[in-house]
């Protein structure tokens, strides 16, 4: 049990705490809970958890602030919980270093999927990043810059490839518009979401079976994009 991943849940709603703790414990995780931002920061420093689940609406501190303070010293994956219609806060927290988000109310499969992705990326940070990513029939070789669908190679332009490689390297994670624009284009282009819209359409046309109902490149409304690869 000692090797079980440790998850810290910071949420002031006791019902949510209870539900998450019950389910995650059942799935073999070690769970610690905190109801306030300060308490959460202290527990994070003491226990060095593997994942932090952080609610944005805390009574004592702004969730975005908690995110910023955590990022001053730890790379531990942070999954934020927020309510609908707070895209602005979500995006702010993601841009301040949170890794992913869940909108309340959420299904437990969603929570477990986010936790799995977060764990994988924290392993990748330790230098074990996979160089070949599979998604359905798609194969993306990040080392050799090759994209294939089955046996057929897909021709991408330089920007399209750069965009796809960035998404694929972060597969499973939500990437905000600003994050993608800054990394694939240039920090100066961080507000040009129209670039993203147009290039995403091009990419989907080349990669997706049905570009209107994408399976691999998903839009996260008001937030960004997420690339779904095979686990």
């Amino acid at each position, binding site marked *: 049990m000692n090797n079980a991943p440790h998850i810290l849940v910071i949420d002031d709603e006791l019902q949510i705490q209870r539900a998450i703790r019950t389910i995650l414990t059942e799935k073999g995780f070690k769970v610690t809970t905190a109801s306030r931002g300060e308490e959460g920061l202290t527990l994070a420093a003491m226990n060095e958890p593997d994942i932090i689940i952080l609610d944005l609406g805390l009574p004592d501190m702004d969730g975005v602030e908690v995110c910023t303070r955590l990022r001053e010293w730890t790379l531990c994956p942070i999954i934020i919980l927020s309510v609908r219609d707070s*895209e602005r806060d979500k995006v702010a927290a993601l841009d301040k270093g949170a890794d992913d988000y869940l909108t309340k109310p959420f299904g437990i499969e969603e929570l477990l999927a986010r936790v799995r992705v977060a764990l994988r990326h924290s392993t990748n940070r330790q230098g074990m990043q996979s160089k070949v990513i599979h998604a359905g029939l798609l194969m993306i070789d990040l080392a050799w810059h090759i994209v294939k669908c089955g046996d057929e190679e897909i021709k991408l*332009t*330089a920007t399209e490839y750069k965009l796809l490689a960035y998404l694929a390297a972060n597969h499973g994670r939500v990437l905000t518009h600003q994050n993608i624009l800054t990394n694939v284009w240039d920090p100066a282009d961080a507000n040009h979401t*129209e670039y993203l819209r*147009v290039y995403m*359409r091009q990419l989907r046309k080349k990669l997706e079976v049905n*570009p209107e109902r*994408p399976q691999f490149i998903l839009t996260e*409304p008001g937030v960004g994009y997420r690339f779904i690869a095979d686990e």
Partner: protein
Amino acid sequence: MTMRGSTFISRSSQYLLAIGFIALVTAILFSLREALDTTLVALLYLIPLGLITAYWGLGPGITSALVTFLTFNYFFIEPYYTFAVHRSTDIVILIIFLIVAIVISQLVGRMRSGLAAATAHEREATQLYELSTALAGLQDGLTIAKILAKQVQDVSQGETVELNITGTQSFAFRLPESKQITRPPEWVVPIQVVRGILGEIRLWRAAPALTSSEKRLLQTFANQGALALERARLAQAESRARVLEESDRLKSAILSSVSHELRTPLSTIKAAASSLRGNDVNWDSAARPELIAAIDDEADHLNMLVGNLLDMSRIESGVLKPKREWNILSEIVGSVLARMKHLAEEHRIEVDMPESLPLIPVDYVQMEQVFTNLVSNSVKYAPEKSMIRMRAFVDGDSIHAVVSNQGPQVPQEHLERIFDKFFRITAADQVTGTGLGLSICRGIIEAHGGRLWAENIPDGLAFNFTLPLLWEGVSPPKLPMDTETE
């Protein structure tokens, strides 16, 4: 100073003219002296006197009467060229002449000033009439103030007129606007209503000083203005009260809808959860997954209801501000359809949104909401296996989108009303939902500067909406795409 100077000149020139006229008449009579009798001369002298008083007023009239008395005595009563009188009849003639001359002057003068006063009164009445006509029916305080200031300026011929309105909507208004004036105003009239003082009219007019009748007129103007301002305020208060009443009505409608709509999914959840908990259902029973699915579905339904209520209250309070970005309409539709997959699998869905459509400046999340609501409305009413069609095309400066279904048509008189809150054609207990979906759509489309309407089509119902393509006057960007492959 010029005005006072010019009236002074015209006043003294009236006297000079009167005396000149008398001199002329005296010269004519003098040349005929031998042929005329003294009494006849006296009678003839009365004619110019009457004329002078009638034209130039009492002052010149009396003056000329005295001058005439002297010239008459000097030139026409023997002994000539002295003021001495020898004959007693001549003395009587002279005295009678003087009395008649003064009485005529008095009478004609009084008539004349009566006429002038009547004219002045008529002018005042006309000005007041014009003011109250101009103010009639105005609802806006600023417009009222402008008209009032302009009329005061017209009537008083002042250098500057300033209107200060205090209170909640305070403002100052000055005519002519560019003029800067440093000295205190010559005359200040309060604008007063029952509740107190609304403001004041300040008038700068150094000369001529305001007469009492002008002051009276300005006070009347101020009173008229006060009445108009008060009326505007009351009208505003009334419309505010109507808005409050409307929102109160909405709130109670929401409450009754909420209690009905929220209780339905809650009952399902409660029943399913408690029967699972109470071991009423065997572990391997087929009912088990069904109950669990019911809890899950109804929880989603509850979530949607709460979301709708939130959206509606946001639209109602006017805080729904679209966060615009250049978006691709088909991408929005795509993510809506992906999310509604299980809802829409009973229907065939056809999307016709050509790639050539320009980018549109909309809030992604809000437009998703619009398509979600329109599609779920279609799913709810249109028969299974029927077609739901979504298409869009460019129409001038806007994009025109259509979501059509093969569901029942809506009676012509209800086509507009289906966008009203809580309006339903069918009884509320036959369909689920808050009755808010379509009015949320309309709220969002209107916040984007577009228009949403419904129309009956040969085999069903179509929702149409337009969205402007220009964003702050800028047309959709066309991006340079790189075409070289790696």
